[in-house]
């Protein structure tokens, strides 16, 4: 139903572009979103909306301009198209800027939309979030307040059409829940955060698990002290590990490579990481959040090994940067740039507990703050919190320190990968250990 509506809007935009003498692709997104927040025993936020948007990228003689609008009236579309065509006149002509040669879709069943989620009753969602808030508040006596518990979901229809005749649509669902309890002890407060997401309701981590983890994160670091400055092994817990892998994505993003913004430029074929570093981008995993039948330009998604046992095999491309760097698109066009499908580090065989137990002295990182990674140089630096590891056991909680290192050295020094990979986002990772990093504290 929505797919048809979205395809019609996309087709109208494509026709207008064709009439203006341009090649174009039009993407329409129609999303129904629901969000509710519970605090203590009441609902403190209830939001629900249907939103739609149109993005058009047009090409005239290799000159590229894009437009976005939520005004789908004929006049609105015509006005937007004129502005974009006018912009083309001052853009440099670039023979590489054109639609993909071949479009298509991955034809397997990707299980993107969960009917149980799409049809879920609002009252059930409200009961759900109130239960989560109650569970987290009763999880520990030091938790007497919260910054709120959340449940949200969305059903999003995406349609893509272009002047070469491609026209396809798909619908995906997603649900998220999270909680942020505030614990208080010895005159200090700490907020714990834990959130999770899935395409299908049955795959979403339950309220009990979310409450338990959020509560544990709020209380477990009480009494944390600043550690000494040292060089030791560092274990990244899986959520933080995922943020490291996300940073790495920026370095394999061909758009960054092409403009000199990646420390991995010129390194394809080289051994960059340790034997344990196998990283994949895969848009074809059924039921996963980063899956879709085709990318933002209508190129079928696929499975692309990016690192194999430490060797950098390829960057990730859209059509333009593939042409620019002499490769083929890997189906990673997204929102006018390059984005991930499911991008993940392959899991190892040992448990996280075993990884910790095999660490004589080190640091277990549970939270980081800050977001600066210098992608041109590959320097990693974050504020962090976690635990000291002594004789294979988590001992004292620590905070107000930083972890820093060089990305190339970090990847080469990964000497342990756990088996706790979980697809609760598009970029995910199991926990892993880096043999040595600098901890800055006292």
């Amino acid at each position, binding site marked *: 139903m929505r797919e048809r509506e979205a395809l019609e809007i996309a087709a109208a935009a494509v026709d207008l572009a064709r009439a203006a003498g341009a090649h174009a692709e039009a993407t329409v997104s129609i999303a129904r979103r629901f969000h509710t927040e519970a605090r203590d025993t009441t609902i403190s936020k209830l939001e629900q909306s249907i939103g739609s948007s149109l993005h058009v990228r047009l090409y005239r003689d290799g000159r590229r301009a894009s437009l*976005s609008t939520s005004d789908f009236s004929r006049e609105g579309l015509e006005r937007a198209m004129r502005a974009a065509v006018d912009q083309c006149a001052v853009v440099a002509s670039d023979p590489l800027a054109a639609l993909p040669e071949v479009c298509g879709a991955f034809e397997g069943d990707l299980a993107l939309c969960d009917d149980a989620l799409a049809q879920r009753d609002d009252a059930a969602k409200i009961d759900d979030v109130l239960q989560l808030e109650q569970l987290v508040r009763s999880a520990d006596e030091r938790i007497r307040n919260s910054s709120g518990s959340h449940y949200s979901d969305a059903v999003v229809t995406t349609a893509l059409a272009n002047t070469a005749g491609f026209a396809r649509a798909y619908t995906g669902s997603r649900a998220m829940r999270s909680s942020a309890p505030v614990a208080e002890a010895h005159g200090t407060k700490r907020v714990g955060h834990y959130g999770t997401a899935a395409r299908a309701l049955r795959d979403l981590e339950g309220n009990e698990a979310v409450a338990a983890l959020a509560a544990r994160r709020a209380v477990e670091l009480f009494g944390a002290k600043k550690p000494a400055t040292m060089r030791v092994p560092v274990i990244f817990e899986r959520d933080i590990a995922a943020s490291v892998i996300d940073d790495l994505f920026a370095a394999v993003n061909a758009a960054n490579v092409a403009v000199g*913004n990646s420390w991995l430029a010129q390194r394809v074929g080289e051994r960059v990481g340790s034997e344990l570093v196998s990283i994949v981008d895969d848009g074809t995993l059924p039921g996963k959040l980063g899956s879709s039948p085709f990318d933002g330009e209508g190129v079928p998604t696929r499975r692309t090994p990016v690192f194999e046992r430490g060797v950098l095999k390829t960057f990730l491309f859209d059509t333009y940067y593939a042409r620019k760097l002499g490769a083929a698109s890997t189906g990673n066009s997204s929102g006018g740039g390059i984005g991930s499908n499911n991008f993940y580090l392959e899991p190892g065989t040992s448990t996280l507990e075993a990884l910790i137990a095999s660490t004589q002295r080190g640091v277990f990182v549970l939270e980081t703050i800050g977001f600066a990674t210098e992608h041109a*140089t590959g320097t990693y630096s974050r*504020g962090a919190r976690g635990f000291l590891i002594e004789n294979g056991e988590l001992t004292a909680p620590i905070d107000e320190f*930083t972890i820093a290192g060089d990305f190339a050295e970090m990847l080469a020094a990964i000497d342990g990968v756990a088996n706790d990979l979980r697809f609760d986002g598009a970029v995910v990772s199991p926990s892993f250990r880096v043999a040595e990093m600098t901890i800055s504290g006292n």
Partner: protein
Amino acid sequence: MLDTATFDRLLARALRFGGDYADIFCERRSTYAFRLQDGRIHEGTTGVTQGVGIRVVVGEAAGYAYADDLSLEKLLEAAEAASLIARSLPGGEARAFDFTNVPVQALYDEHRSEHAHASRYVALLERADATARAYDPRIVAVNASISDEIQDVWIAASDGRYVHDHRPMVTLGVQAVAAHERERASGYVGDGGRTSLDYFDSHSPEELATDAARIARTNLDAVPAPAGEMEMVVGAGGGGVLLHEAVGHGLESDFNRRGVSLYSGRVGERVASELVTIYDDGNLPEERGSVAVDDEGVPGQHKVLVENGVLRGYMQDTLNARLMGVQSTGSGRRQSFRFLPQPRMCNTYMPPGESTVEEIIGSTKRGIYAKSFAGGQVEISKGDFVFMIAEGYLIENGRVTAPLKNATIVGNGPDAMTKVTAVANDARLARRHYTCGKGGQHVPVGVGIPTVKISSITVGGTHDA
């Protein structure tokens, strides 16, 4: 975009079950932008975003819905969805809303409604590109972008407030990448504000590009930052991110009403060295964070957050102000009509002190000179923060020496503010390019600070201090 009769109808529908308050945020944003890469104009972008957000407030709860389809039918559906937060109430009384125009301060060039000719944007980008490339042969890539945006908002509230604000915003950003053998480094500089392209007549793209190229070249020669505790000198202007993270977020009223912030219930208490005074200002002409009226229709204001080390007050939006029994400070802001407003900072800065930069650097035996920050983040409940240094140097025996590579600073807000031991007389606002993220919403902000000395901070480098 909508007439007052429509606002009236929507508010009545939104309050059909009752509720304390309802408002409508109607927005139209038009964007016009170009991007330069590889020495030529790579792509043009235009955009029109328009829609209406409707909110119903009951106690501390808010119902919200938006529509980007402006037909009356869809707007009424949104009003009904927003009203559901109050569904257990007995029902509202039918009434009309007599709208009174809220006067709007003249903080920006309010008459400009069209973008300039495409060639003017392109010329600015090409000048930046040429300057950065000519600066040093080791500059191997330049990426530049310019955007010109006009946001019109119309706000109507059930208390009769009606206001229209017309907000321009231009931004020019230049990134230079320097390379030598396998070493690479980059520098980024941005500027602009709630003004027009004419701003770049006096703040030229050459000046920005030179600075971006200089930072890239400096960072190419940089040495790894030391690790451990040392003194820190925060640079004037761009160092203001320190105030935004270390103190500002903790003084937003949502965290304080909920008792989540470490500053909750501490107005009147000493929270910093007596050298520390911090303002947040919503009505500095042309600054990125300025709002003639905020996104709830309340005029932007000058707020004293900390005065001589004593906490004076929080930044309030309407909802939290009502619940705390005070007035909104014009701090209710939102990314777009798709979002509920939150209490946010506008332009956060510290006024000048009495020391000089020379005294401050001269008295530093071994420390880090954080000339500007690329950004930062704070954890609200305990006040731990991090900053990423965009341009930093080592200070040894009172002299600025080697440039440092990508250092991160970690600390604790109240602790760092207590350790402020000198404030210089060179206060200034930073170049205008900062954007603040909170709860998934991004809004433009400004920061400023004089040169400030902090007696001890943890530097997160890789080498022994």
